[in-house]
């Protein structure tokens, strides 16, 4: 990184008459009265005009201002920032897929349908579920779909019910998704181990409760060891169990949600199955269900008979579509490629070494940073800034100082039940060298917190910009460029 590079907005380097793309001349006779009577634009006012050289430099310079997995460890807890294999990028853009239109009839897209059906089968096997829909475009979209399926199944039983139970450690999307499905959320408190308190659950679980949404391992990186008992309590009162599969990376090949009483779940392919996060998306959040929920899956469902694939729209109980076409197909292809590459052993090793790397970090930093819950960690561990607070140093300072060491900060201030949280998930693809670099940086920062806290308050020191005024951004929103009058 060259710290002093300033890159203007493209609009600020635009100059009349420049261009970076041309089309061949129109090869049909031009009509003069084209679009007569229609409101047509006079011009694309203030739209950029630059050369291709300027385009290449602009975006290369912007690229250089981003940290990314290709550059180093990205230990964001619950985000599973693992390495994204390059061959999967290439194959997801395979000409046979890239050129295929989503409204083509099924007999012309047998390859696409085979790819999707194969992935569905793999996910069923890995999660222990009976069927999957690949339509949801992200984890939150999967939650929404899964909860709609649960609602439809309960309606079919005669009563959709009113409430959804969600632990206080859950991700914010859980309550929000339940709300869009027309449910009122009731929060369940965690116990001293950081897991669901069975007594509280039993008390809250009435015959007005539709479902429990549980993340397992939860956002503390702790396995809900009572999961089977939890499912029994919910089922006994006629409710269903939804699992947020955000942390599925800790379980693959070891234990299957379908074998522990889960009725529906989503899996974030952009976490567990290495499809790139792309700076915020696209992801994919396929939803797996048990038999009872299958009639309600979104249309179309891909059917296979004797190696021929068809699209089944004739599903009267379906909740309907949750997205146009077939979901984020290019993301789904990447996940398929990842599973094909790893095989059964590799998929199990994902979980094994995700746990080893996380526990290696935990043991290396215990004592230096406060660990609120002593419960064993799976694929991530949650420290807090409690020790450093004594010296006036917060988790924000620690995070920003890590940037100076060339490491991306962990997830901060989440889960909400750990004050000043630093949630660390290294993933299985990291080398010992990169893990040690992170550990050494964290130790150095713990030392700085005692000896020279100001260096932390001022961090980061090596980036293009220093700490940004987020309060001003929200108070006086400037959300687009405008030409100066």
């Amino acid at each position, binding site marked *: 990184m060259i710290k002093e590079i300033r890159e203007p907005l493209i609009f600020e380097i635009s100059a009349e008459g420049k261009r*970076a793309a041309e089309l061949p001349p129109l090869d*049909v006779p031009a009509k003069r009265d084209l679009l007569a009577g229609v409101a047509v634009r006079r011009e694309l006012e203030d739209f950029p005009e630059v050369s291709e050289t300027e*385009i290449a430099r602009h975006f290369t310079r912007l690229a250089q201002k981003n940290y990314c997995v290709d550059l180093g460890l990205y230990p964001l807890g619950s985000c599973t920032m693992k390495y994204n294999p390059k061959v999967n990028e290439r194959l997801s853009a395979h000409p046979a897929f890239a050129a295929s239109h989503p409204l083509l009839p099924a007999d012309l897209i047998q390859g696409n349908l085979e790819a999707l059906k194969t992935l569905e089968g793999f996910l069923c096997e*890995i999660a222990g579920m009976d069927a999957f829909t690949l339509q949801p475009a992200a984890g939150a979209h999967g939650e929404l779909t899964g909860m709609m399926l649960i609602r439809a199944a309960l309606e079919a039983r005669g009563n959709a019910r009113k409430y959804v139970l969600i632990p206080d450690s859950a991700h914010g999307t859980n309550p929000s998704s339940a709300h869009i499905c027309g449910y009122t959320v009731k929060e369940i408190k965690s116990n001293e181990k950081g897991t669901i308190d069975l007594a509280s659950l039993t008390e809250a679980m009435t015959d007005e409760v539709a479902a429990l949404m549980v993340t397992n391992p939860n956002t503390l990186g702790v396995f809900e060891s009572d999961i089977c008992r939890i499912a029994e309590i919910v089922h006994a009162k006629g409710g269903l169990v939804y699992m947020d599969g955000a942390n599925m990376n800790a379980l693959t090949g070891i234990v299957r949600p379908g074998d522990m009483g889960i009725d529906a779940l989503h899996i974030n392919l952009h976490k567990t199955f290495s499809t790139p996060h792309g*700076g915020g*998306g696209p992801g994919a959040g396929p939803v797996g269900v048990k038999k009872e929920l299958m009639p309600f899956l979104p249309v179309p469902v891909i059917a296979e008979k004797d190696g021929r694939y068809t699209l089944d729209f004739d599903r009267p109980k379906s909740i309907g579509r949750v997205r146009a076409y077939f979901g984020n197909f290019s993301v789904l292809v990447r996940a398929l490629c990842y599973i094909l590459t790893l095989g059964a052993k590799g998929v*199990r*090793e994902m979980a094994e070494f995700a746990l080893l790397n996380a526990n290696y970090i935990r043991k290396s930093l215990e004592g230096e940073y406060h660990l609120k819950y002593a419960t064993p960690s799976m694929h991530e561990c949650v420290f807090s800034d409690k020790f450093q607070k004594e010296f006036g140093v917060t988790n924000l300072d620690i995070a920003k100082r890590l940037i100076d060491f060339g490491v991306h900060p962990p997830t901060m201030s989440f889960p909400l039940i750990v004050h000043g949280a630093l949630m660390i998930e290294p993933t299985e693809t990291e080398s010992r060298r990169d893990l040690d670099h992170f550990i050494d940086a964290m130790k150095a920062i713990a030392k700085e917190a005692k000896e020279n806290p100001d260096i932390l308050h001022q961090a980061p020191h090596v980036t293009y910009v220093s700490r940004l005024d987020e309060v001003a951004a929200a108070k006086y929103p400037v959300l687009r460029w405008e030409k100066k009058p």
Partner: protein
Amino acid sequence: MSYLSLSDKDKKEMLARAGVGAVDELFACIPEAVRLKRPLDLPPARSELELVRTIDAVGAKNAAGRVSFLGGGAYEHFIPTVVDYLASRGEFVSPYTPYQPEVSQGTLQLMFEFQTLVCQLTGLDIANDSLYDGSTGAAEAVLMAQRVTGRNKVLIARSLHPQYREVVRTYIKNLGVEAVEVGFGSEGRIDKDALGRLLDDTVAAVVCQSPNFLGVIEDVQALADAAHARKALSVVVVAEALSLGLLEAPGKLGADIVTGEGQSLGLPLSFGGAYLGFMACKKEFLRQMPGRITGQTVDKDGRRGFVLTLSTREQHIRRERATSNICSNQALCAVRATIFLETLGKQGLREMAWQNAQKAAYAAEALAAVPGVKRRLTGPVFNEFVLELAKPWPAVDAGLRAKGIIGGYGLGADYPELKNAVLVAVTELRTKGEIDRLVRSLQEVLS
């Protein structure tokens, strides 16, 4: 093939540090009874070369090599090489959401430019950092209109993409919102009489698509005026974003919320995804906007920088009271669209849109002259139009396919009133030779 990075020596030493003898012990927290006692039933691991061969073989099962006139919400357009090249950089592909702005200024500045471009195209004040796709954008716009107006009914044009209508219905089903469909007249535009009858003070929004699913450009100004007269919002869905390069911005014609599909702006067809939902609105509705928003600010040394902002609307802060449950965006797709739009630029985008309209006009005239073919709807179009055929579409489709042509999208299943009608899209990629071939082939199939 494995992507692990630990040597055997590393593993041994790390297990010792973690305080366990074997990896298995790390899973002691999982009850023995539920553990999987067998290997997963998955195919054997593959090397890269084997993987490539496998995927090549799967891809080869798609029919290829036909000239296509399919549109209907997904369009084959020219994508300059520079888009693929720059958007595939690891710095754009492999970061997370830009929660740490100091090391994410690339993505954040890009999103700020994206928001500006969307505002310019739609003629509105503010735009978000994208939604999943056009269909979920339409659903989010409906929910947003309900929040803004406090009313629980929306009027939805029957000419809105049939799959978008289905998604809207799925989203509102459990929220007590009612969607009433408004049909179209002989022009293919929304039926103004029907709209007049249905539009009252209980309506949150009038939702139309322009150009609509049947290719016809709506009178956006008139629809917005009608909605506003009842204090309802005007929501305009744009499924062919390229049309915004030529047609007047809906925001300048009175639309309150414009949402749509940005696939045409540098994204391959890719069997329907990943695509790019976009959304823009008037600034008074800012607090009800779903999705991420990037804002400009300064750092502590006074330098300009960008951050995610106004997140008190979002689920990680507001939980069940958030404006939407969305927690991501289609950032990498927005990166592609931004590079595409800035590369095409002021002249290029307009020229591309103009060529689409010209070629579609040429094709429509030539095809309508074929015996047994007539234009079905008389309203103005951008790059798609509806033809009615003297023979049933499935037979005609089969005939054209045998000649190496995908002639369009048969409308009979979605619109029983348009039996034997086909939606034909013509983009800048279709040459005069290909259009003439479609004309000749249709003539042969119909004779």
